[in-house]
């Protein structure tokens, strides 16, 4: 059994087939890209994996467990974390609080221990704080820990979202367009950062990205979707020369 496997996933919304027969296998430590034109069904794949949508048919396996259709928070607890295409931070909470929310799932104290600040809770709370601070330090946002997340500039919001996802202790990290809205310099930093967190946290990473420089630069294998169908799978160089992919992105050549 592979580390992660999506087996013949189909997602239908009424008459629209958003994803058709999607198959994906990941080994631990993989860094895989998922690309395709707008509306190809990439984010729908993410939503199925993380439990936001229940696939119309097909199964998803993660670490020998069938996780098809489980609740998102349960899937997160099992070790799959994600970021969002349109950033979804807790804008009115501080940076440190944003990250600390992710530790809540592992809190062992009950509500009374928390309210009366009993020793066991305080130990966990302090440990959460230290760990969250360390994560913020890694994404170079620790000096802004007490600021509201909504006040951050775009690029930093993306970094905070990744930090928040890392705080759930994932084994598989799904990044939905991490480089969107970043300038070339920020994008370069992001590419280094993604490789760095993969090694440091022993992650397997699946990412959706439109910026081909990012995808071709860091992904070892690439899946290409178009109209819900997987049209190509391969290494960056194979994908770049694949006629199907070129057709999907640029359209078919017309002969006059």
């Amino acid at each position, binding site marked *: 059994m592979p580390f992660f496997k999506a087996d013949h996933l189909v997602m239908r919304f009424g008459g629209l087939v958003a994803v058709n027969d999607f198959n994906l296998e990941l080994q631990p430590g993989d860094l895989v890209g998922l690309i395709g034109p707008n509306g190809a069904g990439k984010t729908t794949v993410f939503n199925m994996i993380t439990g936001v949508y229940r696939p119309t048919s097909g199964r998803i396996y993660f670490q020998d467990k069938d996780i098809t259709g489980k609740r998102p*928070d349960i899937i997160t607890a099992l070790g799959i974390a994600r970021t969002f295409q349109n950033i979804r931070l807790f804008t009115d909470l501080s940076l440190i609080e944003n990250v600390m*929310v992710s*530790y*809540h799932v592992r809190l062992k104290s009950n509500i009374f221990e*928390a*309210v009366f600040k009993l020793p066991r809770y305080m130990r966990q*709370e302090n440990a959460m704080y230290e760990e969250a601070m360390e994560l913020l330090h890694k994404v170079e946002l620790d000096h802004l820990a007490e600021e509201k997340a909504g006040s951050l500039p775009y690029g930093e919001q993306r970094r905070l979202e990744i930090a928040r996802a890392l*705080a759930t202790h994932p084994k598989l990290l799904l990044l939905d367009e991490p480089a969107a809205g970043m300038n070339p310099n920020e994008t370069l930093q992001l590419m280094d950062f993604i490789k760095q967190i993969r090694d440091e946290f022993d992650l397997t990473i699946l990412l959706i990205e439109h910026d081909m420089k990012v995808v071709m630069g860091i992904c070892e294998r690439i899946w290409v979707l178009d109209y819900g169908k997987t049209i190509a799978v391969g290494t960056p160089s194979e994908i770049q020369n694949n006629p199907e992919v070129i057709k999907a992105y640029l359209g078919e050549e017309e002969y006059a």
Partner: protein
Amino acid sequence: MRKEKLYLRYLLTLISIVILFLIIWWADGHLDNYYKRVLTVSGIYIILGVSLNLINGITGIFSLGHAGFMGLGAYTAALLTMSVAQKQMTFFIEPLISPLDKISIPFLPALLIGGVVAAFFGLLIGIPTLRLGGDYLAIATLGFGEIIVVVFNNTINITNGALGLKGLSPYTNLWWTYGWAVFTVFFITRLVNSSYGRALKAIRENEVAAQAMGVNIFYHKVLAFIVGAFFAGIGGGLLAHLLTTINPVAFNFFLTFNILIVIVIGGLGSITGSVIAGFFFPILLEWLRFIEAPMDVFGIHIPGIPGMRMVVFSLLLLIVMIFYQRGLMGRSEFSWDFIIKRFVKD
């Protein structure tokens, strides 16, 4: 950075609580009954405002069932404290069911049981309705509030129907009310600032993201609902033993509406705001009574118009909402750090 001046903050909190109770001690001995009564109602509104704010402001669930939970707490506590003789006198249409007719217990346990009953109904109501979102949830909880009133009216052998319960012992005084108010504020503030509170606020900010970060949305919404309902039940019990007579209509939507005004004026999500607005709301309502008296303005005689104060009150509300869209406090909280910083700088 986080721990510095922790003891100073505890000390300041302790000192202010001591000062508060000194004021209450003074008020208890020197003010006449009318003022004491208004201040007691203020304390109850603090409890109600803060508890509803936990549900509506912190967790972002728009609940309109608070008066229903208060009613449950009020009736439960009242039925438990009434003496056996009083119960026989009150229930002359249909006798009270056994074993309630033989029970008479002290005020504190009765209040607590009232709170627990309200919390239990919070759980019961929460499980089906909290799966709904936004406006649908508001309507469902509104429905609950109305159903409770109908139930109170028709379960004559428990609630004495529309006649209500009379002759409750006037246990509620400034001490009881402000004791509970301090505990409510303490409990809910601590809860909001804990890991649980962060999860609740995360749900308010972005439900999808909160769930993706591992927060069990449904569990935490129900939790907030139960805690809010418990303190509403306590508030109801206190109110019952202040008024000494309760009937079903007292717990209809208008009561929820008043509490809603308190939390919106104070600022949805600000406990400090609810405390301030909760304290001044009943005082303002009483103070505005002079408007309803006959008076002469610039030689024009205006006869007393009953209900006029509500018109003025609504105008005041409008003005506040125009100038402070997010309520008086927004989502800010009072903090010692702010005050300490001021003094340290100078």
